[in-house]
């Protein structure tokens, strides 16, 4: 009688911390610990993945929405530096529909354990290693590693299908970059079928233009073994690119390059952040945020529709709800709650959330940070400047 109910194993293990994973049996871990120090004042109080982008989004909305749309329902977010806003932002999984029974977005900062004191993550691989128990509790077959600070739309389920099809031990997403820039990237050299034969970190003389996007699918059992060994290795820098991938190649494992074609941008500097925003004005840039089959989800801000006043002049702009515009806006991206008053001129500019441009002010080729006020008749930025001006503090105007 009592061999009974097959549910036993599942129920029991669930209670003790092993959970059921749906659909593709793949768990995602997003590395979101970067300081993003080249983003300067934008990352003083905000980790880079939480930086605002595209009017209403934050950068980390992209990997999280990609996960939701790819049928992945459990996502760990590895945070470290200045993470209170990032932590509380991603904690509200309902923003990406990741709050169903069986889903979740889990913030995973370094932590104190029974056998170890509190310490920072030592590298990308170490961040995963320190959370082996979390991953084990879901018993996934595949582990997807993502970076929290890239802007792109990608179906990870298709990448998993590729991974399975090739019976791969690990699959790495790659993107073609201009050959002359290839030496700035980690480059994958593959055979004609796409199997990786060599990996070179920032090669002086690159043999291929396939750059690693920092997106990996591993068979969890294999990776787990490698991580346990890597943790104990005093010579390791505990990094996927520097340690884990080379080890796999040395061990003769089957690594495959999954070639991604589409928009992909690392917004590491003020200029590239500005550019990525400007790309939204160009229908040909390849980044379409309006595709109903692949929406990017974000915080649901309580804001009125855009109010366009009687004096407004808007030409080529990307504007979101909560904005109030009664001046001139040209080739610009306006984030939630930004304001352009009568007589003001905003050109080739990004106004981050809550930025205010007062009457008569002129703003050109600038990125105005959150809640910064440009005073009346002030002049900011220069149409001929090489770099974009970051305006991180209020600018006093003339009354």
């Amino acid at each position, binding site marked *: 009688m009592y061999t009974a109910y097959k549910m036993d194993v599942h129920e029991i293990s669930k209670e003790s911390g092993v959970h059921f994973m749906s659909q593709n049996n793949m768990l995602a871990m997003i590395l979101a610990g970067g300081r993003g120090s080249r983003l300067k004042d934008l990352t003083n109080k905000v980790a880079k993945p939480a930086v605002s982008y*595209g*009017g*209403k989004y934050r950068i980390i909305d992209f990997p999280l929405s990609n996960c939701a749309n790819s049928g992945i329902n459990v996502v760990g977010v590895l945070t470290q530096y200045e993470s209170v806003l990032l932590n509380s932002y991603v904690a509200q999984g*309902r923003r990406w529909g990741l709050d169903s029974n069986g889903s979740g977005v889990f913030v995973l900062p370094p932590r104190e354990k029974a056998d170890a004191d509190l310490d920072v993550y030592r590298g990308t691989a170490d961040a995963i290693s320190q959370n082996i128990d979390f991953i084990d509790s879901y018993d996934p077959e595949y582990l997807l590693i993502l970076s929290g600070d890239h802007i792109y739309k990608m179906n990870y389920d298709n990448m998993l299908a590729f991974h399975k099809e090739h019976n791969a031990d690990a699959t790495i997403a790659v993107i073609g970059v201009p050959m002359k820039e290839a030496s700035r990237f980690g480059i994958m050299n593959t055979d004609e079928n796409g199997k990786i034969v060599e990996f070179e970190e920032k090669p002086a003389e690159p043999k291929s233009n396939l750059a690693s996007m920092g997106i990996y699918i591993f068979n969890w059992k294999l990776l787990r073994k490698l991580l346990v060994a890597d943790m104990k290795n005093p010579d390791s820098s505990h990094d996927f690119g520097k340690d884990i991938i080379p080890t796999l190649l040395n061990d003769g494992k089957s690594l495959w390059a999954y070639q991604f074609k589409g928009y992909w941008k690392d917004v590491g500097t003020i200029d590239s952040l500005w550019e990525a925003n400007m790309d*939204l*004005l160009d229908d040909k840039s390849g980044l379409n*945020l*309006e595709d109903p089959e692949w*929406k*990017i*989800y*974000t915080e*649901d801000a*309580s804001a*009125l*529709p*855009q*109010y*366009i*006043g*009687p*004096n*407004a*002049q*808007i*030409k*080529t*702009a*990307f*504007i*979101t*709800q909560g904005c109030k515009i009664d001046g001139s*806006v040209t080739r610009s*991206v*306006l984030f939630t709650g930004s304001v352009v008053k009568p007589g003001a001129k905003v050109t080739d500019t990004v106004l981050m959330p809550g930025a205010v441009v007062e009457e008569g002010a002129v703003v050109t080729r600038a990125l105005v940070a959150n809640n910064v006020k440009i005073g009346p008749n002030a002049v900011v930025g220069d149409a001929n400047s090489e770099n974009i001006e970051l305006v991180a503090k209020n600018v006093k105007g003339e009354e």
Partner: protein
Amino acid sequence: MATAFGIITSSANHIKIAGMQDYRPMGAFSFAGRYRVIDFPISNMSNSGIDNIQVYVRENPRSLAEHLGNEGSFNINSKKGKLQLLFSDNSTANDVYNTDIAAFAENMNIIARKGQEYVIIAPSYMVYTQDYNELLEQHVASGADITLLYHHVNNAKENYLHCDTLDLNKQKGVLSIERNTGTANAKNIFMDTYVMKRDLFISLVREAQKLSSIYTLSQFINSEVNDLDVRGVAHRGYFATVTDFKSYFEANLDLIDVDNANSLFHDNWPIYTVTSDAAPTKYYEQAEVRNSLVSNGCSIKGLVENSVIGRGVTIEDGAIVKNCVVLAYSRIGKDVHIENQVVDKWAQIIHAKEIIGTPEKPGYIKRDDIL
């Protein structure tokens, strides 16, 4: 501390909005681009700490059921609270039987199980903000049996003709509740909003049913004003009714006026709705937009003036849109010129080149229509 549950009523059987109402109940009508009318009473209740809300629906429940599918969107705790859709069997024999009293009676076993001492009843077809907690405290402090919310207006001769009015004595006691017949401009428009004890409410419903099957709650209370202490409380701030096509059209355009918007939307009183996850709106080089409310997800290449544009609307090159309420996912084609129109969802105006109404007689373009 007094506790209340909320009831949001569907429109009475004498209120009809030809066209739009064929597709959804009035509460599900789009408002100010990104809201639906019912977002206002629900947000009022949610912000007042009322997390047990019954919404009555008579016809075409789908859009309302979907909109209200998730309590969380309205900041209601799904464990402690409940946003419950209650359906009423519509007598197709004669619509006069489909009263609010009939709907309450049909769901009486659910009402009777509520643990709260008071009930607050608000309509799904009026737009205003009101702190119901304050209203409830006022009601309790006054000792009245029933408190009715009203709005004093000075243009009742030609407006609010489907609404009831309150006749009040000096002490704000209600002398009568009667249909506005347009006899005078100064009137107290009854906002179809009630506060009373749950038990009184239950007994009113039961008594009304005994006397006549076509009594409405307001009619029955009107017949009881001599026996009960019924009082009016004045509402301040923006107030609009959605009780006929013109009032719907005008209320939408109202919100373009900053003063109206300011008296409806307040700090710390968010109006919740369900997000559609639309991207920001793209304005192209040819765009010309003035004095308008524009929702997210639009693509604008034409001219827009004094209009309310819903989510995901496409306005093509050379199109002219003036004094219009354009609902979500519609398309105004190349060189099309429309004025004083309500364009319902998913409509496409591409072949017709000019559709011009007047502010007095705005036009209506049906859902999914291709013109």
